[in-house]
């Protein structure tokens, strides 16, 4: 069993904040495909399309049959630890700061031998369950977990380096006026966050659920309007230095395409929240989070963006809103790039139609706010960066991965119909 992680003590104000350092980041183009699957929490390896040989490390040719028809496939996660060591020195500063560090050779059930990080609860020469996740450098790595769940397993030092566990961390939920924001706050408090700051814009307007939100344990309501630079900056001035996880639940959704609208005011409102709101949050909270990526057990660790899956490809029914979400998606990629080097992950959740009033006429299947909140907590606990949520989103992402230009035409053809 792992030792249960205790709530970190208050920070010694005389101590310098540790500068984030990184594990090795350079990878080949093929290895980046591995990282991309790891960012989705998938364990995918190259598999020869001709002879089914599973290949590792990634390469251009099947070493068994010389076929170049190589596919990336999810593989079974079982394996066996065949050799291990505990490193006590490293040429890399990140690892040097975290010694001792356990690694080993694992023989995967799928065939290949891999080097992997080893969870502290894995026994000698034991069966293991492999996961692929992105590390602090943003690149995919393998970690061997005990085959069966152990006590406090999530608190293992090496596993925690790959995850963004909310336990004992301080979280900002940017908009608590909606059911989504309220469910998110509750889910994070439930997951062990030490404090959940919940932003409320225009507190002069009443909103449903306000009393319940105010009564939630470890929830603190703070004034925050992402459309107002002054408001965002003021809150960052207060809590920016102790925001470990930021979850942007603010969204502005209205049906309508470009020509169904008169004027640009609604589009501007969409941009004010969905794009400029994100920009304001990044400018106000980003620098402090980036500087705190290695700040102990409650270091800054994740920035969560919730985006309509149509951010990937425009859907005319919400044509203008999805354009603003595409802008937000693009900005999230910029943020991910800017956070490189900090160890803070950008978690993007692409979801299908949400069960809320502005999407009320859309047919099922829909994603409930509770499910979205749960999936964010799960992604944080698991260290997953890219989440696709709900059947509609899964369908769109699948087509997007196949060919985004074909998806664009399919969405045009689908017109008013949601399912494509």
């Amino acid at each position: 069993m792992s030792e249960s992680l205790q709530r970190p003590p208050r920070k010694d104000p005389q101590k310098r904040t540790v500068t984030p350092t990184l594990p090795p980041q350079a990878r080949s183009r093929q290895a980046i495909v591995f990282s991309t699957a790891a960012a989705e929490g998938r364990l995918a390896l190259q598999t020869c399309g001709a002879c089914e040989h599973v290949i590792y490390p990634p390469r251009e040719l099947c070493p068994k049959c010389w076929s170049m028809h190589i596919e990336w496939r999810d593989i079974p996660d079982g394996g066996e630890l065949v050799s291990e060591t505990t490193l006590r020195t490293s040429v890399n500063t990140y690892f040097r700061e975290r010694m001792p560090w356990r690694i080993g050779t694992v023989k995967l059930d799928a065939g290949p031998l891999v080097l992997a990080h080893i969870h502290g609860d894995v026994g000698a020469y034991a069966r293991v369950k492999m996961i692929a996740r992105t590390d602090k450098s943003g690149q995919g790595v393998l970690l061997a977990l005990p085959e069966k769940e152990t006590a406090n397993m999530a608190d293992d030092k090496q596993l925690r380096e790959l995850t963004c566990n909310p336990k004992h961390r301080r979280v900002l939920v940017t908009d608590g006026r909606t059911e989504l924001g309220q469910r998110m706050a509750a889910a994070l408090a439930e997951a062990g966050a030490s404090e959940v700051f919940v932003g409320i814009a225009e507190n002069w307007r009443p909103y449903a659920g306000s009393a319940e939100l105010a009564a939630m344990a470890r929830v603190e309501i703070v004034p925050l309007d992402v459309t107002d630079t002054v408001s965002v900056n003021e809150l960052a001035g207060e809590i920016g230095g102790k925001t470990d996880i930021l979850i942007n639940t603010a969204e502005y959704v209205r049906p309508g395409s470009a020509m169904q609208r008169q004027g640009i005011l609604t589009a501007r409102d969409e941009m004010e929240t969905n794009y400029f709101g994100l920009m304001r949050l990044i400018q106000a909270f980003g620098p402090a989070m980036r500087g705190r990526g290695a700040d102990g057990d409650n270091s800054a660790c994740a920035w969560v963006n919730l985006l309509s899956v149509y951010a990937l490809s425009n859907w005319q029914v919400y044509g203008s809103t999805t354009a603003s979400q595409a802008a937000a998606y693009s900005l999230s990629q910029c943020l991910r790039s800017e956070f490189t080097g900090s160890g803070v992950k950008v978690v993007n959740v692409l979801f299908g139609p949400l069960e809320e009033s502005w999407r009320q006429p859309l047919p099922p299947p829909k994603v409930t706010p509770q499910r979205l909140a749960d999936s964010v907590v799960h992604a944080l606990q698991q260290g997953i960066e890219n989440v696709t949520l709900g059947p509609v989103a899964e369908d769109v992402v699948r087509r997007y991965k196949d060919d985004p230009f074909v998806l664009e035409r399919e969405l045009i053809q689908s017109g008013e119909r949601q399912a494509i």
Partner: protein
Amino acid sequence: MSNSNSTVLEALASAMASGDVQTVDLTHTLDSEFPVIVLPPEFGQCAPFRAEVVSQYDERGPGWYWQNISMCEHTGTHFDAPVHWISGKDLPNGSVDSIAPGAFVKPACVIDCSTECAADEDFLLTPEFIQAWEKKHGEIPAGNWVLMRSDWSKRSGAAYLNMREDGAHSPGPSADAVRFLVEQRDIVGFGTETVGTDAGQAAHLTPPHPAHYLFHGAGKYGLQCLTNLDQLPPTGAILLCPPLKIKNGSGSPLRVLALVARSAA
């Protein structure tokens, strides 16, 4: 003529210099957190005040500070022109840029309804209430502003709009009161401390939103989100309320000042 006129202004200047005439600010600070009117969400919305720093003695401008600001014509303490409402859309000189400037400097009568509004948040000002006031303070002269003092400006946060599931609850004039002020008193405009000239529940009056519909239809103006009305005398104050000269503007945020004689205040 010119002599006597200049004498009036000189007397005013000296009264202001001596403090015998004082200037009262009836304006709220433009602040991003100040409430704006809330319409049903499928309608276009009134934009709140926003400021973005252009530069502040920094790399964007090392020696100077300035902001870009944005808002609706009806954000904060603001002026309503007749074209704001459909009933006034065809009136001549109905937009802020075309209103003759004399309308922006006029005497004001202040009807104190604060006690009644404290007791009844949906209080409606009636012709009878106005006439009772006139019995004490004299008939409202033509060409005056009428300001309805509710002390609503002393409320803050959620209590200001006072939104409930059936909408906002705040005082305003009844349709008859509006008709009375237009037809019987020919006032220049009507001002309130609330977010609109109409009561919060005025959508349910006949006609709906009578202050907007009837005042603007008659070429009268509106002032909203006023404050410090409790510092004005019932009569005798001079109101200074020029809106921004916005082409075809339906209204404008503005600074509203009142000149008040010291003895009267």
